[in-house]
C-alpha cells in the first residue's frame, strides 16, 4: 500500500511542476511586458520602467525567473492582487469556503438524485420511467448551465419570488464569518442570538438552493447514466440471481447485493466530476454573483489582475490534481487489483 501511494505521488509531482510552468508562462505570453501590463495604458519613463523590471526580477534570464517563481511558491509567496493589494493566498482562502460549500451541495444533490434515478431506471428497464430518465439525463448533459441558471432565476426568483436572485445571504443579516460556510455560520449565529438572527439559516439555504441545482445538473446526468448502466451489468451477475433465489427481499438484493457492487465505476465518475464542478463554478458563480473562486478569477481576468489570474489558476489546478490523487488512493484501497497492478 505504501509503495502504491509513493508511485502515485511520483506521478503527481511532474504534473504539479508542469502546471507551474503553465502559470509561469501565462504572464510571459501576454503581449506587452508585465510592467506595461501592470501600469496600464500610461507611457512610462524608460528609467522607471527599467527600475520596475529590476525590482520585479524581470531583467534576469527566463530560467532564473522560473527558479525565482518556484522559490516564491515554495516559501508561500503567491504575490499580491494589483487591485486590492491583498495577498493572493489570503483572498483565495477567504473565498474558497463559498465555492466549497456550493460544490458540496451540488455534488450532494447530484449524487442523491442521480443514484436514485439510475437505480430505478435500471430496475424498471424499458419502462416509460426509464426512457424519461435517460432522455432527461441526456438533456441535462447537453445543458448550457449558464442559461439554465438564468431560466431558473427567471422562474423561481422573478416570477414566483421563492428564492433570492443572487448572493449568499440577505443584507439584513450581519453574520461574522467563523467557518466560511454560510449555512454553518448562519446556524451558529441563529443559535447564539435567536432574536436578532431569526431565519438566517433558512435564508442561507434559500440562497444556496438554485446555484447548487445549476452546478449539480451535469454531474447529476452523468451519475444517473453511469449508475443505470453499471446496475444493469451487475444485475446480470450470478450472485444476484443467487441472492434472489434464496429468497432475500427485493430491497435487500438491490441495495446490498447490486448497488454496492455497481458503485465502483460510479464513484470513479464522481471523482472525475470535481474538475467539471470547478469549471462549472466559474459560470454558476458569475450568474448568481456568488462570492467564490470562480467569480474571483473571472473578475481578475476582466480587471487584468494578473497575479490573481496566475496563482488563482495554479491553486485550482493543484486542488483538482490533489482530489484526483485522493480518489486514486481510495480506489486502490477499495480494489486491491488496482493497487497491485503495474
Amino acid at each position, binding site marked *: 500500500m505504501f509503495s502504491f501511494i509513493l508511485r502515485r505521488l511520483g506521478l503527481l509531482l511532474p504534473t504539479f511542476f*508542469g502546471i507551474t510552468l503553465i502559470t509561469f508562462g501565462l504572464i510571459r505570453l501576454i503581449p506587452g511586458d508585465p510592467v506595461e501590463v501592470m501600469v496600464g495604458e500610461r507611457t512610462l519613463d524608460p528609467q522607471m520602467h527599467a527600475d520596475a523590471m529590476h525590482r520585479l526580477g524581470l531583467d534576469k534570464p527566463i530560467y532564473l525567473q522560473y527558479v525565482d517563481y518556484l522559490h516564491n511558491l515554495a516559501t508561500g509567496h503567491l504575490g499580491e492582487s494589483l487591485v486590492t493589494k491583498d495577498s493572493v493566498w489570503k483572498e483565495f482562502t477567504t473565498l474558497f469556503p463559498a465555492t466549497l460549500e456550493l460544490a458540496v451541495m451540488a455534488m450532494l444533490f447530484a449524487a442523491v438524485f442521480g443514484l436514485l434515478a439510475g437505480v430505478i431506471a435500471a430496475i424498471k428497464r424499458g419502462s416509460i420511467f426509464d426512457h424519461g430518465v435517460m432522455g432527461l439525463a441526456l438533456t441535462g448533459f447537453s445543458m*448550457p448551465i449558464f442559461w439554465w441558471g438564468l*431560466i431558473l432565476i427567471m422562474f423561481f426568483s422573478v416570477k414566483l419570488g421563492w428564492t433570492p436572485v443572487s448572493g449568499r445571504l440577505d443584507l439584513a443579516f450581519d453574520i461574522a464569518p467563523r467557518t466560511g460556510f454560510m449555512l454553518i455560520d448562519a446556524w451558529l449565529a441563529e443559535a447564539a442570538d435567536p432574536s436578532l438572527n431569526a431565519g438566517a439559516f433558512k435564508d442561507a439555504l434559500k440562497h444556496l438552493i438554485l446555484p447548487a441545482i445549476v452546478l449539480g445538473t451535469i454531474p447529476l446526468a452523468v451519475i444517473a447514466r453511469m449508475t443505470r448502466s*453499471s446496475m444493469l451489468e451487475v444485475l446480470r451477475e450470478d450472485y444476484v440471481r443467487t441472492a434472489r433465489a434464496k429468497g432475500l427481499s427485493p430491497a435487500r438484493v438491490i441495495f446490498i447485493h447490486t448497488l454496492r457492487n455497481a458503485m465502483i465505476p460510479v464513484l470513479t465518475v464522481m471523482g472525475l466530476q470535481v474538475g467539471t464542478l470547478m469549471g462549472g463554478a*466559474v*459560470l454558476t458563480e458569475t*450568474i448568481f454573483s456568488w462570492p467564490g473562486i470562480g467569480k474571483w478569477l473571472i473578475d481578475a*481576468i476582466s480587471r487584468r489582475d494578473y497575479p490573481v489570474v496566475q496563482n488563482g489558476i495554479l491553486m485550482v*489546478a493543484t486542488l*483538482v490534481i490533489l482530489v484526483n490523487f485522493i480518489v486514486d488512493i481510495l480506489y486502490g484501497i477499495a480494489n486491491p487489483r488496482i493497487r497491485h497492478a503495474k
Partner: protein
Amino acid sequence: MANVQASPVATAADEVALSYPSPLKEFWQGFSHNKGAVAGLIFMIAIAVSALLAPWLAPYNPIEQYRDAILAPPAWMDGGTSRFLFGTDELGRDLLSRLIHGARLSLLIGLTSVVMAMVPGVILGLIAAFFPKVLGSLIMRLMDIMMALPALLLAVAIVAILGPGLINTMIAIAIVALPAYVRLTRASAMTELNRDYVTASRVAGAGLLRLMFVCVLPNCMAPLIVHATMSFSSAILEAAALGFLGLGVQPPTPEWGTMLASARDYIERAWWVVTLPGVTILLSVLAINLMGDGLRDALDPKLKRAA
C-alpha cells in the same frame, strides 16, 4: 468431406445469405435503428442548411438596430408583430436573424476546433503509441498536465493570454480538446499494434509513415469519429460559455452565448431574449449528442455499453 462435395449445390443460396451489405448500408442500418439519432441528424441538417443560407434565409441584417421596435415580443404574443417573428432584443435587433447567423458561428467554431484538435491529436497519439518509451511517456505526461486543469478554466486562461475573439476562442477550445484525442488514439493504436496484420506489413517492409497512417490509423477511426461528434457538441457549449463570460466572440457579432451575456438584465420583462438563444444552444447540443449515440451504435459495438 461430404459437406465439401455437397457445397456447390448450396453456393448460390449461401452467397445470398453471406453477402454482406455494403459498409455504408450497414452503417445506415445501425444508425437508423436509433430513432433519437435520426431526429438529431434531421435537426442538425436543418441548422446546417440555415447556417449555410443565412444571408438569404434571415429576414434582416443581424446587427441592424430597429430603434422603433426595442424588445418587441415574438409574433404569437400580445403586442407582437409578424414583422419580427421571434421578437427583438434590447437594441431592436431581430432575434430570428441573429439566431440564424449565430448558427454559422457556432458550427464554424465547432468544426474548426474539432479539426484543429483532431489532426495534431491523432499525430501525437500515433507517435506516443509507436515510440512508447521516451517520446510516448513525454507526450502522455504533457497531456496529463493539460487534463489536470478543468476544461473551461483552461480555455479561460488561454483566452486571458490571447485576448478575446473568434479565432482565439477556436484555438482555446482546440487546445482544451487535444488531450482526449491523444489518449484515445494512443490507446486504440496500442491494441492494434499487437495484431498480426501490423507485424505482417512490418515484415513486408512497410515504412513508419505507412504503418502509422495506412495500416493502423484506419482501424482506430471508429472511436475517434464518435469522440469527434461528442467534442463537437462540447465545443459549441464551451464557445457559448466563453461568449457568455464576455471572453469569446465579441458583440455585436451574433453568437449564441454572447447573446445571452446581456440577457440577464431583461429577465423580468423580456423572457424571449433570455429563452430563445439558450433553447437553440440546448437543442443543437442535444441533437449532436443524440447523433453521437447513434454513431456509437453503428460504428463501434464495443462501446455500446459504456455510459
